[in-house]
């Protein structure tokens, strides 16, 4: 939203410069497709690049026009936006070893209007991997004297691509009503949803063994102990 607002300011500045080049008042300048044009005119108009060069050269600017096209803006939302979604995880647990394998992962998110699909997809994939890492691998372990023991990536585990399933992702696109673009956030869609999805899938798989909870990260040994304690109960 701040980007949109900053862009609007740039266009407004550019219209003042374009109006002199097009020899019409600023309110009669239209902008679209990267081109500034006088209303109703058939001429080629002036591209944003031409306006930018004129602003930079700054030798014949209208009175009061700044010799630049930069701007900044801060967005103060009138209300929250509410991204939402559903993540489903299917796990297979080796009941003898406690090893967890993720068989499939399906995520459908609604992050409002999507401006850049590749970024949205990347955020969801990366977020799922991060949340799954919390569920299965990541743990900062200290000894009794407070020394950190997990000091290398061989000790503090993270999932690599080889440890992850192929994610199935989908979207619904419900525009937010609290901002002009209709956008919502996507940054934490994957991280928030995937951790409980993975752990709940493990607990669900182990329900017949009497398991009601497994402490994160669900390492093979923790899962194995949970199965032993559940079965003994």
């Amino acid at each position: 939203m701040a980007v949109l607002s900053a862009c609007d300011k740039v266009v407004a500045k550019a219209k003042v410069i374009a109006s002199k080049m097009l020899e019409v008042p600023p309110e009669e300048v239209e902008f679209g497709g990267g081109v500034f044009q006088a209303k109703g005119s058939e001429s080629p108009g002036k591209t944003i690049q031409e306006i930018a060069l004129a602003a930079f050269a700054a030798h014949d600017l209208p009175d009061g026009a700044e010799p630049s096209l930069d701007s900044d803006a801060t967005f103060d939302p009138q209300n929250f936006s509410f991204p939402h979604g559903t993540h489903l995880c299917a796990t297979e647990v080796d009941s003898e070893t406690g090893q967890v394998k993720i068989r499939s992962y399906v995520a459908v998110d609604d992050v409002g209007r999507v401006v850049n699909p590749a970024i949205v997809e990347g955020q969801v994939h990366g977020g799922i991997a991060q949340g799954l890492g919390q569920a299965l691998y990541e743990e900062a372990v200290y000894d009794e004297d407070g020394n950190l023991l997990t000091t290398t990536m061989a000790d503090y585990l993270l999932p690599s691509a080889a440890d992850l399933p192929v994610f199935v992702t989908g979207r619904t696109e419900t525009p937010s009503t609290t901002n002009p673009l209709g956008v919502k956030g996507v940054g934490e869609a994957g991280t928030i949803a995937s951790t409980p999805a993975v752990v709940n899938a493990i607990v669900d798989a182990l329900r017949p063994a009497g398991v009601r909870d497994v402490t994160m990260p669900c390492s093979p040994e923790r899962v194995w102990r949970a199965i032993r304690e559940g079965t003994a109960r």
Partner: protein
Amino acid sequence: MIPARFGYVRPASLADAVAALASSGEEANVIAGGQSLIPLLRLRLADPGLLVDIGKLAELRGVLDEGATLRIGALTTHYELVNEPQIREHCGLIAEAAATVADPAVRHRGTIGGSLAHADAAGDLPAVAVALGATLLARGPSGDREIPAADFFVDYLTTTLSSDEIVTGVRVPKLGPGWGYRYEKFQRTAQAWAIVGVAAAVRRDNGQVAEARVGLTNMGLVPVRASAVEAAARRTPATADSLRRAASHAGEAAQPPTDLHGSAEYRRHLARVLTGRALAAAAGL
């Protein structure tokens, strides 16, 4: 981290390499692929005064068919162990275990000689060498020496090699007709070390287990030969149940470590489960 300062020589022959080690005393390390030693240098867990680089010595390369055994040159990389037709045909357990080592970049540089001489009980090949009854071949100032794998590993990262000896190769008995094998590696992430690994080979004869060989990875300071399992499996029916019973002896005498990835108790349990699975797969079940 940056390693401490060290000297470096790359001898032109094996004889020169042995001479370089002999003249430098205790402080020299042999380097080939560097996949274990360089991390130790960077962590400053190793601080040799001199590195003797044998990585270019052609005489340490190649696989030789000796009839009942294969002689595998020390510089044979994990990648070559996985792909070399003679090894796949006669020593498939080595190929299968080598395929589980780290990632492709490591497998292209790491060597069988380096892996065995490094003697990390969490490494995959030491347990395979012990299970198969392989023989380490070494060259020192007074000539060649042959060391059974069972005697080679004496402590954590420690072998019977003297400071002026170099592993030149490993002699491995071929697994003939009737033999099957499996390396079961249990790890938390795809490229991690084994929490426990099991190397098993089984010879079937008339629905019975005629012979079994089992080695355990990361179940102690040295690779462990599971002799009690081998004895219990011998002359039992080749069924999953009887092999699982035999596997219950796995790790009996072992002193597995407790670390961030598993307690000793859990490792003992894993050794039994994985040995049962490895034996069953090796028996073709």
